[in-house]
Structures are given as C-alpha cells and as structure tokens.
C-alpha cells in the first residue's frame, strides 16, 4: 500500500459536527427501535397465548394482511406491537388483527412535531387497555393526536406535503370526538390496503421519473425523491417529460393495484386547458388518477 494522497484519509479532518449529527441520528434510531421491540415482545407473548387457544378451536387461523407496499424509509414509526426488525425482513405482520397498520403507526414527521422525548414518554405509558376482539394496544394515531393536542392543520400539512403516499389518515374521523369512527374506519383493512397499493404505485412512478432525470431533479429538491407535495403535473412539467415517456414508465410498473391514470387530463392540466379551483398537489394527482376523496381514496 503506497502513501500517495488519499481523499479517504483526508476525510479524517472534516468538521466533527457532521460526525456528531450522524451518531445522534443512529442513536435516536436505536432508541426508537428498542421501544418498538419492547412493545413487540410484550404483545408477542399475548399473541402466542391467543394463537394457541385459537389454533385449538379454529380450522384456519385468520390471516392478517401483509404489510403494505409502503416506503419504510419515509420514517413511519410502528408503535403497534408485533413488528420486530426481523419480521420486517420477511415481509412483516401486524399483531392487531382488526385494524389497518396505519391506525397503529406514528410517522416520524409527527414525532418531530411533538418532540421525541415527549413522544417516547407517551409510548412508554402503560397501556390501560383490555385486549378487545384482536386489538392489543391503544397506541393509535387517534390517541396520539388527541393526547398531544395536535392541530388539524398540522396533521393535514404533514399528510399532504409528505406522507400521503405512505399512510392513510381519515382526518375527519381522527378529529371526531367519538373514537369509534376511527376504530370503525381502520377495520376496513382490505380496502385500505388496496388504496395503499395504488398510492405506492403512484409514488414509485414519480420516483422512477425522478431517478431517470436525477441531475435535474436533485439540484432543486435537496437530493430527495418526490414527496406527496410533488404532483405528477409538477414533476412532468418540471422535467419536461413527453407523454410517451410517461406511458413507458407506467407500463413498466407492476403493482397489484394501480389508479386508472388519465394522461389526457395530466397534459391538459399542464397546458392549462383544464384548471382547478384549489390546485393543491393532491388535487392535481386526484384528477390524474381519477379519485375524488383526497383523504382516503
């Protein structure tokens, strides 16, 4: 090994603040995971007992839905018991048998708003909760936003700016005084999963486009892949992409469920031949994808 100049060696002299930031991020992640695992082990013991008793009586144990095709790197913290890191690697499962996992997930963007320490204290509060028809925890998005009194505008901003692709919030139900509305909504696991597949397909489409035009995209988007606030109209217009190219991307993405994309409408939006009263990114995507309810479709 010779002693010529090496950039790798020179890296030793960088500002220590970058290293500290890196270690802090890892440390915070480790704490969060420890917390998740803690819940996992608690719930796992409950699940095992119930599984054993059910297996003895039922011919086939009810399958819980597979984890949605959600980008886990977006930072959704599972406060729901039952998902260990090992489980994630093999596809994951939800120990809550009745609710969609979005009900028991708290995204990191929301944790940041609340404050990590406060949030961790909340997750450590004992679940004063009697297991009820398959749900083992009251650590839910409903209870979280009510416990911390998170304003609706804040939640909507997080949802529509960042997370709409990867989680499902029925904001009306979440802000209802009656918890049973949310409880009922998140029991429609199959329907919610289908919508999540469609959203993941849309997110993948956006990411593929950005990937193939990365130099142009990353310069003004801080090296981040498209978020919910970047509508297809915005992306196609920004990167000046032809209809044929968009069609090609669409044809190459295979998901179990996808929206019925309307390219005529997309390009009409870009040309300005179609206008919308309140042109939010999700409203633009809704026209392109053919859905009406921006919150839950």
């Amino acid at each position, binding site marked *: 090994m010779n002693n010529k100049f*090496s950039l790798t060696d020179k890296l030793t002299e960088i500002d220590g603040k970058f*290293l500290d930031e890196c270690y802090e991020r890892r440390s915070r992640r480790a704490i969060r995971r420890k917390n998740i695992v803690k819940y996992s082990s608690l719930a796992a013991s409950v699940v095992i007992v119930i599984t054993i008793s059910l297996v003895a009586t039922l011919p086939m144990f009810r399958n819980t839905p597979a984890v949605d095709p959600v980008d886990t790197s977006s930072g959704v913290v599972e406060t729901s018991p039952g998902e260990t890191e090992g489980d994630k690697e093999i596809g994951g499962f939800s120990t809550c048998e009745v609710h969609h996992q979005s009900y028991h997930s708290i995204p990191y963007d929301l944790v940041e708003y609340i404050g990590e320490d406060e949030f961790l204290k909340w997750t450590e509060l004992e679940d004063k909760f009697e297991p009820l028809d398959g749900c083992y925890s009251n650590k839910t998005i409903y209870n979280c936003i009510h416990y911390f009194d998170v304003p609706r505008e804040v939640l909507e901003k997080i949802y529509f700016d960042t997370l709409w692709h990867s989680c499902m919030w029925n904001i009306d139900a979440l802000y209802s005084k009656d918890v049973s509305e949310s409880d009922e909504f998140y029991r429609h696991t199959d329907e919610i999963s289908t919508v999540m597949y469609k959203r993941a397909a849309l997110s993948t489409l956006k990411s593929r486009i950005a990937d193939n035009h990365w130099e142009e995209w990353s310069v003004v988007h801080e090296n981040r892949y498209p978020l919910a606030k970047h509508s297809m109209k915005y992306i196609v217009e920004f990167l000046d992409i032809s209809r044929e190219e968009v069609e090609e991307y669409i044809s190459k993405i295979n998901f179990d469920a996808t929206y019925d994309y309307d390219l005529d409408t997309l390009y009409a939006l870009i040309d300005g031949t179609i206008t919308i009263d309140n042109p939010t990114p999700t409203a633009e995507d809704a026209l392109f994808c053919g859905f009406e309810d921006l919150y839950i479709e």
Partner: protein
Amino acid sequence: MKQLCTTEEVVKALENRDSTVLEEIEKSYGKLLRSIAFNLGLNSGDAEECMNDTYLEVWNTIPPAKPKSIRSYVCMLMRRLVIDRIRYNSADKRAGTVYLEVAGELDSCINVENTVIDEICIPMILNGFLEKQTPENREIFLRRYYEFEGTKEIARDLLMGVSAIEKRLSRMRIELKKMLTEWGYN
C-alpha cells in the same frame, strides 16, 4: 450511545490530569471505536492496540487541544491510527482489502496524478460538500467512507435497499468530483 459525561467534563478532567476519565471514554465510546477497527477488518488484538493508542493520544493532546465534541475527537484519532496500522501492517490482506475498496471508491473523485494537491483546502471542500447534503445522505456517506461500513449493513439499518444506498453513494461521489473539479483539482 449514551454519553456518560459531556465534552466539557472530559476536557476539565483531563486538564486536571484525572486519568479515570479515560475509563469513562472507554465506557461511552469503546464500542464505537472498536467498530471502526472491525469494519476495516483489523483483528481484535490490533483493534485493542489502536484503542489504547487513541486513549493515550487523548491524554497527550488534551490539553492543549479543546475539542468541541469528545466523541468525534476520539473517532478522528482512532480512524487515523487504524489507517496507519493498515498501512504499516500491509501484509494483513483482509484489512487492506476493505480499505482499498472503500478508498478506491472515494479517491476516484480526485485525480492526484496531474494535480498539485493543496492539502489544507481539501477538508474545507469536504466540509462544504457535506454541508450541502441532506442529513440522511450525510449519514450514508460518513458511514461508508469515514467508518468503512458495508453498504449491506447501512441499508439494513436505514431500511433501504442495497442498490438504493449504492446509487446514492454514486451520486454523492459525482457531486463531490464536480466540486473538486470546480476547485481545480481534476
């Protein structure tokens, strides 16, 4: 990584020549330091020696040095010592291979053959480059090129695919190369 004592407390203790603080440093950062050595394929004997040398360096350099962060200071010392050890002990093929692989990736950003390298400027450019990255990308970059962690391990920890990590690293290298070229290094 729980910080048992703050940087100020460590520096103060070292100024008072209190050697027990070195045990505190070992408790707080020993695992982290060891991981730098193990990532580069050093055996446990060499790793321990580098760690002891790091603590000795801490003892000898503070004071007069007053690091802003004791954690990054000990990591910097350890990294330097581990690289020196690998250079010295070049017969250790396993350790050398990891270093050469990682260094090969990063050093491709700069052409050292036909350029006069102003070594003082380089850390400044590297800081500027890191400043421009997102925290997540900074973490990926530093874990790979500062701590010599494998892309598989980084991907597993960040819940990302290995190819996504490799793609990001490749983009960051292109960006760094561009910056270095702007500064006249290529």
